[in-house]
């Protein structure tokens, strides 16, 4: 049967190609985790309650993980997202709740806070030689302090209430069927835009080049500084968007909210196969990483396990992801020379 052998060969070849794709490992991890919690959580987890619980979480964190992932592909980190979320929530609550200005003004104000912090991050990262990790930790604390100080100064409290208009509520803070947060659909929109940016438009190539070798990218005529700043603005905007959605959903803003997003967003990105050193990763991978993270995080409540086990599983997943990323890079580089070790001064 030569025909069937041929077919089998072609199938094996395309399977082989699929297996070499970096997302495949992440995808298998997600499936394993899902089956694990489906077995433990039973029908509630398999039904709408289970789906809505992890999708709600994935939607919120996914909106931030996408631009953070793009930054990581470009070789930079953004820690400041953790304080942009409460800063933008608070801005909305103060403008529209405390002062009673129209909701639209508050929302635009909240989003502007994110854009501004992103712009400052971008300026600092491109104009100094300080690693972006340190810079964004710095801006995170700066923004956190300002949020706290200004909230107490203006509203006299660390929690401010707001009654959002009906349009704002339905657009940003409602739940479809009483379960599925509308942020899930915003997330889908963000995924589409980021997918276009990274994989379809020529800018994606610039982002990969930036993470691969900044100096070569600059010499190739890529406006590296502008691009880096734009990516920071994007992540600031996304974090502010989540902050705005939160304040509209919960009708109040808290100064301390949002810190968990710092590590969670980075973990989603790394579980999704983005290299910590930059230069490699994909939007599909980040989406898979986000879903995996959310499944573990929420699935634990549907199982009879101790919720603390969830953290252990996430930790193990993270290590497994980094290990497989590393071996992926080894395979990709083949036997080629180690770049830094071989450099001879001339």
């Amino acid at each position, binding site marked *: 049967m030569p025909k069937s052998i041929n077919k089998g060969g072609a199938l094996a070849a395309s399977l082989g190609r699929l297996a070499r794709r970096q997302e495949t490992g992440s995808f298998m991890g997600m499936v394993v985790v899902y089956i694990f919690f489906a077995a433990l959580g039973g029908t509630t987890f398999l039904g709408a309650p289970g789906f809505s619980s992890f999708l709600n979480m994935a939607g919120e964190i996914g909106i931030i993980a996408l631009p953070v992932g793009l930054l990581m592909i470009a070789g930079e980190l953004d820690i400041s997202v953790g304080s942009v979320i409460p800063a933008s929530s608070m801005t909305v609550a103060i403008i529209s709740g405390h002062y009673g200005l129209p909701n639209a003004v508050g929302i635009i104000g909240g989003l502007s806070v994110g854009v501004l912090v992103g712009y400052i991050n971008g300026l600092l990262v491109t104009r100094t030689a300080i690693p972006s990790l340190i810079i964004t930790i710095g801006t995170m604390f700066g923004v956190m302090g300002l949020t706290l100080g200004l909230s107490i100064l203006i509203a006299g409290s660390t929690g401010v209430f707001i009654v959002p208009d009906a349009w704002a509520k339905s657009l940003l803070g409602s739940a479809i069927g009483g379960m599925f947060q509308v942020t899930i659909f915003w997330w889908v929109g963000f995924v589409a835009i980021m997918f276009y940016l990274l994989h*379809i*438009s*020529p800018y*994606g*190539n*610039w982002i*990969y*080049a930036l993470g*691969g*070798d900044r100096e*070569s*990218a*600059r*010499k*190739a*005529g*890529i406006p590296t500084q502008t691009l880096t700043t734009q990516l920071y603005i994007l992540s600031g905007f996304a974090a502010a968007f989540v902050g705005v959605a939160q304040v509209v959903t919960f009708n109040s803003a808290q100064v301390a909210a949002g810190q968990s997003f710092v590590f969670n967003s980075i973990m989603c990105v790394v579980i999704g196969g983005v*290299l910590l050193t930059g*230069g*490699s990763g994909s939007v599909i991978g980040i989406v898979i990483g986000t879903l995996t993270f959310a499944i573990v995080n929420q699935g634990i409540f549907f199982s009879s396990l101790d919720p603390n086990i969830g953290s252990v599983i996430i930790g193990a997943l993270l290590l497994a992801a980094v290990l497989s990323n590393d071996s992926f*890079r080894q395979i*990709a*580089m*083949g*036997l*080629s*020379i180690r*770049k830094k070790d*071989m*450099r*001879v*001064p*001339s």
Partner: protein
Amino acid sequence: MSDTIPVLELRKVDKSFGPIDVLHEISLKVNKGEVLCLLGDNGAGKSTLIMNLCGVQQPTRGDILMDGEKVSFQGPKDAADRGIATVHQFGGTFPLMSIGRSFFVGVEPTKGWGPFKIYDRKRANEIAVKAVQDFGITRIDDGDRLVGGLSGGERQSLAIARAVHFGARVLILDEPTAALGVKQAAHVLRIVNEAKRRGLAVIFITHQVMHAMAVGDHFAVLIRGAVAADFKRGDKTREEITDLMAGGETMADLEANIAGYMETHDGHPPTIVA
């Protein structure tokens, strides 16, 4: 050759960083279809010279001329626009990007219109693979392969093919063979010859005299930031060039010294006292 206008010429170029003179009155020229080999030991000023040639730095004094006209490069992009392409030791390519993507980095071919531009992967891959194969690297046939999977020589070749494809007239090769094995180096030297045959002016920087002699038409030896010797192919032997690079102390003397020491010390080379 005296009546042809050199593609690139340096006239008494100085470069100082504060009180330190790194380059001193460098005068060089390179013609179309000619390979100028720039030889020099570590620290002789080769890297600084390259940075001045490719627009990363500007000379403190002196002129750079292209086709007989004075030019001043505002940055690497400016120099590149005028047709000066620099290929660095490791090819300046991105190990985790595909061949097609890294070939077109910064100048991606697109289809579609307005803000909805689409990176044309198929066309990028086709052009990249063809450009590299035209240089005789037939092993590269899939533009989706990652650059990191190529050998060092192939990466150099890819970078040179890229420079030529984008209309380079002057090709500056910074130690292209330094980290390569014998076969891979031979590979790159063939590519250099091919670039020369296509009429490019090539500046080949190396401290490997053998490699320089294999492709060079014209040689310049840099010592402590100055041109210590400037000669044509066949004017000097390999030993003479090596001696020049070592700064006057002849290699034969050094070798004799070491051999003499080893004879009296049970075959051990002399310990180095800094």
